[in-house]
């Protein structure tokens, strides 16, 4: 009896050691930042990128309630309002260095949650897309955690339509719940397993060029500037830039600059983009932001559909500029519709442009961060088969 107890103790010790080893070997994500996990956070008012009128106050109230339910300590509303008034803080889509430091010193928070509402469609079946990131308060505003949720009422209709969600408030509550669950995992340093998910082949760029000189490492610093918007959708340029920020931050193998810091430099140096980023502007950004790479591009299509019939469409091109060579080291062209590669009963259909765009951006980021023709990049043998044009040259 005693010996069996000892043996079971031994097994437990072995299992725990194994678990510890596995945890140590897990690639770092945006949330695995150990010392940077904040104990108290401020939740900024939600920024509306949906292009339509949205009850932001109600959504934010639900967000605060869900955060409280999960034991996340949040800066009080009155205190936040006073802080914002004192600093004349009107833009809530990002956090610059001065604001981050003030949050740390005056409000005593460890992080600031920046949330954007990118779709809020009450037409049946309803749809909602929310995106959030937690930025550390202090001298350097780093992205600690980033995630997004996009849902449609008919995502999982189930048998005889029993899984359909008909009203938007119910869908909103579910979406906020999922986002805050992920935030809670981020705050407690558990990270996000989805960050290393392999993207499906149909979402990879259709045409891409990757210079062999491109080598992204842990020390690489990347700034994402808003994409040039040629689509019919308002804020599509900002939304796509946020997709890139999130996907790069979630991978954790590069340092992505907080968009609030990038925006502040654009304003301070009066940088205006005519049809995209010029090399002169890029040089200014390389210097003032101290970054190695800049991501930029153009959005051609970012279309959602109303109601149950239809399919979202997203088309964009992206460029990665290198500080050393002052050249484009990655260029890609992506276009997809929500039903690409779907043949049976709409299984796997992407019902929102947000979800589709996220997957497509993940495909580009995969190409960006994976050197050579690894398993996660388009296989050169795919060339010409599914519209992929793959190249890598000196």
């Amino acid at each position: 009896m005693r010996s069996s107890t000892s043996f079971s103790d031994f097994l437990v010790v072995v299992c725990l050691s194994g678990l510890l080893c596995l945890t140590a070997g897990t690639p770092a994500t945006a949330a695995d930042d150990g010392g940077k996990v904040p104990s108290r956070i401020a939740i900024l008012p939600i920024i509306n990128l949906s292009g339509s009128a949205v009850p932001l106050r109600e959504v934010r109230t639900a967000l605060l309630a869900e955060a409280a339910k999960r034991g996340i300590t949040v800066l009080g509303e009155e205190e936040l309002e006073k802080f914002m008034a004192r600093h004349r803080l009107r833009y809530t889509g990002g956090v610059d260095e001065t604001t981050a430091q003030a949050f740390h010193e005056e409000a005593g928070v460890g992080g600031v949650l920046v949330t954007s509402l990118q779709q809020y469609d009450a037409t049946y079946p309803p749809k909602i897309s929310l995106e959030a990131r937690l930025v550390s308060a202090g001298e350097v505003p780093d992205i600690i955690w980033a995630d997004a949720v996009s849902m449609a009422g008919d995502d999982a209709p189930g048998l005889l339509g029993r899984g359909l969600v008909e009203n938007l408030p119910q869908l909103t509550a579910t979406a906020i719940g999922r986002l805050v669950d992920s935030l809670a995992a981020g705050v407690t340093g558990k990270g996000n397993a989805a960050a290393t998910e392999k993207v499906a082949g149909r979402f990879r760029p259709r045409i891409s060029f990757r210079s062999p000189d491109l080598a992204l490492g842990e020390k690489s610093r990347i700034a994402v500037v808003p994409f040039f918007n040629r689509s019919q959708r308002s804020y599509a340029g900002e939304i796509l830039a946020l997709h890139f920020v999130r996907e790069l931050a979630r991978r954790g193998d590069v340092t992505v600059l907080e968009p609030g810091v990038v925006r502040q430099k654009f304003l301070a140096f009066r940088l205006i983009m005519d049809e995209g980023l010029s090399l002169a502007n890029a040089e200014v950004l390389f210097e003032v932001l101290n970054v190695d790479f800049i991501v930029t591009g153009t959005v051609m299509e970012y279309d959602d559909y109303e109601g149950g019939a239809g399919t979202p469409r997203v088309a964009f091109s992206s460029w990665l500029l290198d500080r050393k060579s002052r050249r484009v080291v990655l260029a890609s062209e992506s276009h997809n519709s929500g039903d690409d590669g779907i043949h049976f009963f709409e299984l796997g259909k992407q019902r929102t442009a947000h979800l589709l765009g996220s997957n497509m951006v993940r495909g580009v980021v995969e190409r960006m961060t994976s050197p050579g023709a690894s398993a996660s990049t388009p296989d050169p043998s795919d060339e010409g088969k599914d519209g992929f044009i793959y190249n890598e040259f000196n």
Partner: protein
Amino acid sequence: MKRFLSTIGIGLSLLFLGGCASGNLDIYRDQNMDFGAVRTVAVLPFANLTRDNTSSERVRDVFTTMLLATGGVYALPPGEVARGVIRTGVANAAAPSVEEAVKLGGVLKVDALITGVVREYGEVRSSTSTANVISLSMQMVETQTGRVVWTATATEGGIGVTDRLFGGGGRPMNEITEKAVNEIINKLF
């Protein structure tokens, strides 16, 4: 009789050879130009003769990325090209004059400029059949002299026999755009 048959044979052969003589009338390549020396190009905004306002920008975007992907030449990012056009004060960026082309080449430090025209882009209809079509033409202007050294055209899509017989609406616009651009690039290299 033998002579008669051989005469007919020669006549037919000449007729077929004559048919082949039309060749590549949709390409022009300057024989004196060393295309291997072209390392960096600027793709200027394309002229748009279609009803779709964004078609020229979409085609330009695909063309620039595809040109980079060939590995043959380096194409400047569109933002840098726009800065060059503004700095040199080019009146019509889609069709620069010889002087403007030389000036642009100096400012952007490129070996050649690429201009283009999108002639057709979108859906065409014929009785009950519809399909997408694209028609492009492009030119390469050498920046030292401002001479046109290469031109090519490509047309893809349209209503085919199967579309007429069975319907179907043709292939997606993005797909035929990539095909047409690929065809044009193949004519360059």
